[in-house]
């Protein structure tokens, strides 16, 4: 052992605090589920809210602690090229994403209970599953070891497979669960095979290995071919999770079939976690070859375009939002690509702030939108075609008004975070000379307005003789969830400067929003 220079593993329990908090809350919720009175989940919801708040607080408590990797072998003294192979990284990106996932979970928990009751799904297991899924997402975002990432991903996914099929009496929910499960496992096997190949080429599953091999540049072509194949397959795994074309096919079906609250969590939380992990992955792979930027840029272009085009032809609100989330994955990928290109190319390095900001805004606008859409769940039934939302404005004015805010943000209309996010992505793309991608983003934004307006139109349409009881009553949880999401979207726009300062993910010295019109 002595010759290897392996240092005793640094153990930083404090950094793990939020993760442990979320997991433990899930365990407590599970135990409570066994004790609870019949059909009453209020206690569980309360515990979840408290637990999530505590976890969020723990993230903040970590905020200014010295970061770095822990829980693993540290070779940095013996071998600088390899460095610390710790399994858990406590850095600002991880903290921001953890906070975001905790927030998304909190909002999900807030509006779920009313929906589940209306939908006659009084399963207390829902909450622990959501929490554990969130914990999986947090693991994905805070590790640089692909194996741990895989474990996090599977934790997240397996919980979601169950959640997607929660409404087990409903054909669509079953179908969604099965499709999601089979395709998810299929994608996982690609991911795993990719990890195996990377492991074969570098000797470790840790991302530092890829960085090291890119630095030392061994002459063996074979090694590189194996490495590239591995990276490609891992990217496929990412692409499946964030729903990039052509790995997006599951998305609309699963979003349409799964319970709406689950879809909200899935759309927001999973994408956030997967993109955060992707950002870490991009950080190292861009140094191996420039081909990745090309591949990812092409994927982004195809994803935006196809997602938006198909969304235009939809008649189901949840499906529209599914395709919208595909398109948004394309937008975020543009930011990721710009970030990667700026790191490897002759450009001013960009920060991770654009991606983080857009993820935050995207997460809350999507989640809010699904929260409002969940209002059609009533008496065990739920419709999600556009016609099913006629008259929502009349029967639930506040959520409907907030819904308009969410749609405006998704469409990228000013005074919302969605606009600023898109603007920043646009600017990032320009700053790495990807004019065509930026323009495509602009064109796609314009196209997307059409289908967002269609949903808004449906929500605001008054149909004579609409029965009010078609919609579930608005409870305090849903009300709060909508208000919180809308507040964050507008605050994200208005107070962008302090927000970016606080996140601290911008490239050093760069003013993130200076020079924006109207600022």
């Amino acid at each position, binding site marked *: 052992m002595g010759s290897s220079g392996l240092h005793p593993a640094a153990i930083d329990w404090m950094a793990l605090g939020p993760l442990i908090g979320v997991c433990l809350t899930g365990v407590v919720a599970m135990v409570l589920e066994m004790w609870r009175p019949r059909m009453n989940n209020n206690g569980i919801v309360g515990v979840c809210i408290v637990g999530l708040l505590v976890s969020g607080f723990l993230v903040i408590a970590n905020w200014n602690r010295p970061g770095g990797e822990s829980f693993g072998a540290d070779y940095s003294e013996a071998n600088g090229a390899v460095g610390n192979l710790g399994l858990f990284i406590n850095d600002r990106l991880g903290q921001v994403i953890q906070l975001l996932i905790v927030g998304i979970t909190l909002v999900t928990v807030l509006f779920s209970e009313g929906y589940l009751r209306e939908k006659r799904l009084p399963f207390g297991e829902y909450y622990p599953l959501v929490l554990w899924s969130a914990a999986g997402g947090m693991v994905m975002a805070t590790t640089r070891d692909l194996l741990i990432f895989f474990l996090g991903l599977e934790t997240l996914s397996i919980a979601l497979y169950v959640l997607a099929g929660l409404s087990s009496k409903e054909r669509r929910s079953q179908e969604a669960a099965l499709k999601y499960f089979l395709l998810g496992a299929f994608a996982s096997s*690609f991911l795993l095979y990719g990890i195996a190949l990377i492991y074969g080429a570098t000797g470790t599953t840790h991302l530092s290995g890829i960085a090291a091999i890119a630095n030392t540049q061994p002459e063996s072509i074979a090694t590189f071919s194996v490495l590239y194949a591995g990276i490609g397959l891992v990217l496929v795994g990412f692409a499946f999770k964030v729903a990039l074309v052509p790995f997006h096919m599951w998305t609309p079906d699963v979003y349409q079939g799964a319970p709406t609250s689950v879809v909200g969590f899935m759309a927001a939380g999973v994408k956030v976690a997967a993109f955060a992990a992707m950002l870490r992955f991009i950080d190292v792979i861009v140094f191996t070859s420039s081909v990745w930027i090309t591949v990812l840029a092409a994927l982004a272009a195809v994803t935006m375009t196809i997602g938006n085009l198909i969304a235009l032809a939809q008649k189901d609100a949840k499906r529209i939002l599914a395709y919208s989330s595909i398109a948004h994955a394309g937008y975020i990928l543009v930011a990721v690509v710009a970030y990667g290109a700026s790191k490897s190319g002759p450009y001013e390095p960009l920060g991770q702030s654009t991606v983080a900001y857009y993820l935050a805004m995207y997460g809350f606008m999507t989640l809010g939108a699904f929260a409002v859409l969940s209002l059609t769940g009533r008496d065990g039934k739920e419709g999600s075609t556009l016609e099913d939302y006629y008259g929502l404005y009349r029967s639930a004015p506040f959520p409907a008004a907030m819904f308009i805010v969410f749609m405006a943000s998704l469409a990228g209309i000013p005074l919302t975070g969605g606009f600023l996010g898109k603007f920043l992505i646009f600017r990032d793309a320009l700053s790495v000379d990807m004019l065509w991608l930026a323009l495509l983003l602009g064109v796609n934004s314009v196209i997307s307005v059409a289908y967002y307006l269609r949903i808004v139109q449906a929500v605001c349409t008054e149909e004579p003789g609409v029965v009010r009881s078609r919609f579930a009553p608005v409870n305090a949880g849903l009300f709060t969830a909508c208000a919180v999401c809308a507040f964050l979207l507008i605050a994200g726009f208005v107070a962008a400067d302090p927000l970016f300062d606080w996140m601290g993910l911008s490239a050093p010295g760069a003013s993130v929003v200076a020079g924006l019109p109207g600022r």
Partner: protein
Amino acid sequence: MTTVWDYIWIVQLLPVAGFLAQALFGQRIIAMFGPAMGRRICGAMAVVPIALAFVIGVFVFYKLTELAPDQRVQISTWFNWIDLQTLRVPFELRVDPLSLTMVLIVTGVGALIHLYATGYMATDRDYPRFFTYLNLFIAFMLMLVLGNNLALVFIGWEGVGLCSYLLIGYWYHDIANAKAANKAFIVNRIGDWGFVLGIFLIYVTFASSQAIVGDEARLLSFDVILPLAEKVLPTFGPAVVAAVPILLFIGAMGKSAQFPLYLWLPDAMAGPTPVSALIHAATMVTAGVYLVTRCHVFFELSPIAMLVVACVGAFTAIFAATVAFGQTDIKKVLAYSTVSQLGYMFLACGVGAFYAGMFHVTTHAFFKALLFLGSGAVIVAMAHEQDMRRYGALRKYLPITHGTMLIGWIAIAGIPPLAGFFSKDDILGKTFASSHYWTEHGWLVDPKILYAIGLITAFMTAMYMTRMFWLTFLGKEERWRESAAGVSDEHAHHEAHVHHPHAHAEHEDTHGFFLSDDEVLERERAEHEAEHHDVLTPDHQPKEVVPSMWLPLVALAALSIVGGLVLSGGYPFSELLHWDTQHLFRDWNAIAAAPTLLPAAEMFHADHMTEWILIGSSVLAAILGIGVMAFQHRLGIPKSDREITGLKRIMGAQWGFDGAMYKTFVDFGGRFSQGFYRWFDKGVIDGLFVNGSAWTVQSFGKLFRKAQTGYVRSYALTMLLGVVVILSYVIWKTNR
């Protein structure tokens, strides 16, 4: 650091607070305290901020007079609103004699009119809404006159336009009112177009000039651009030197209702009378004069622009005066008189006597507000009948209104020593005196001609005002008692109405200042039923208005008597008040704020003999005008007024100008646009570009949608193909 000048922010924010309070709580207060008490509270909430702002304004003004004359420009900055490398626009207010003069007019006259309005609108259903708009108007007007940069002025400019629109259309149930509001808004847009272009041109020239260095990115701020205008503008050639002031003047023409953009002002009389007094006579319409005076340096650089201003002013003055002869609506007479007086103000500006223009703004605010409010009192007393031909001999019914209106009448006619004489004579005298200077500087029109036009206008002003006054108050006939058919066909329908149960005369004003709840509700209902057109029945007994309405009349009458004398520093006031100057306006007011480029002392020089002759002729014109009209009316209403015919008919129709404009732009333009819209918009743009591209995109969507078969295995296959394509590309690319 807070200085005394920062108090000006209180002046600016008080009406804002009033507006917010009124908008948020007005209806609730009325609901809570009942219609009568609630209205009293709302009225107080509206009046008090304005009055308070006036008091603070006086205080700041007093502080300003304590400074040396060259120190009398103070700027109070709150925060940076727009902060770019090439342009900084702070929220900054400018305290100088010019802005404070306007502030005092706006808040002082404004407070009086607010007070009046509490009485005038006492029975209106939407009481808080009215005062919400009114306070908002004051806030924007203050922003307009106090703003130290063109951006803030523009905010105020558009804001007062908005309030004007809202208030003209205040009784929006009547489609005519809504149309009048639209007309005002649209015609003003033409002016705003010029104003905005002017601002852009100023920004562009100053931004590309090398003269500005350092902190001076405040390229729209007056304290930066005005002193530098002389240096910067000429480097861009004579076209720019002329274009900047002319563009600004186009803006001023729209807001100040100069020919040909005056069209909206007469229609604006559709609004409640206090609005006409405040916005369309005393304050907002003078914003154009204020703007020209504020930016006088730009004008002074270009004799051509000065000529344009003077000619437009003179022509508007005489044109509107002729139109006033043909009017039968008491408010319309006053509206055209306002247009005509505004023409005077621009005439003064055009010949370089900016201070005289501002002087006339001030005195005009006094007597025109008085006249409007008086006419409002008459209208209220006459059950909302506005046709002068149905008035007559009202002096015995409305003694206070009659007395105060009498003062307003003499003041506007230009009889010394009332306010109108001083300012009008000043304008005419300076116009005449500047003849030498301007003919030397390339004017094609001798100012003496403009003087002649001005003098004739003064004569005509005296005539039509006499006509109005006579028809309303004097004579022996009480014409509303005559058969309605004898007066005019359009009022024939009044006959059809039987005695209206809620006619105004039935109400006894036992409460003096205020009404009781029941009275308010009853009158409100009555007015609502009659849609603000109560029926004037032959047995109508006019009644003097409530004190809250006549008190402002008395105050304004007092100002109209002494205003001109005091402000021009006439004996004995200059000694009495220990002012360091003889003529408050001439010596340091408007011009001192930024030194004039014109040789004021020599260009306006005239010997004593000439001065006395000029004064004599204007007095003569006034007396003659009154005399001629008095003679014509001595036997009662002339035949040409009973049935508006002949020349009066043509004049009353604005010489056909309004009709021609309507035909050209609304009828023909509308048809042209319709055709263009059908062919180009619907056909080419909508059909080909919009729907065409939407159809294309949608078809792609439908096509791609087909790939989503619903079969898991095909999804997996797609994924597998994706993997194969990506991996093949990567391996191929990296192994080359």
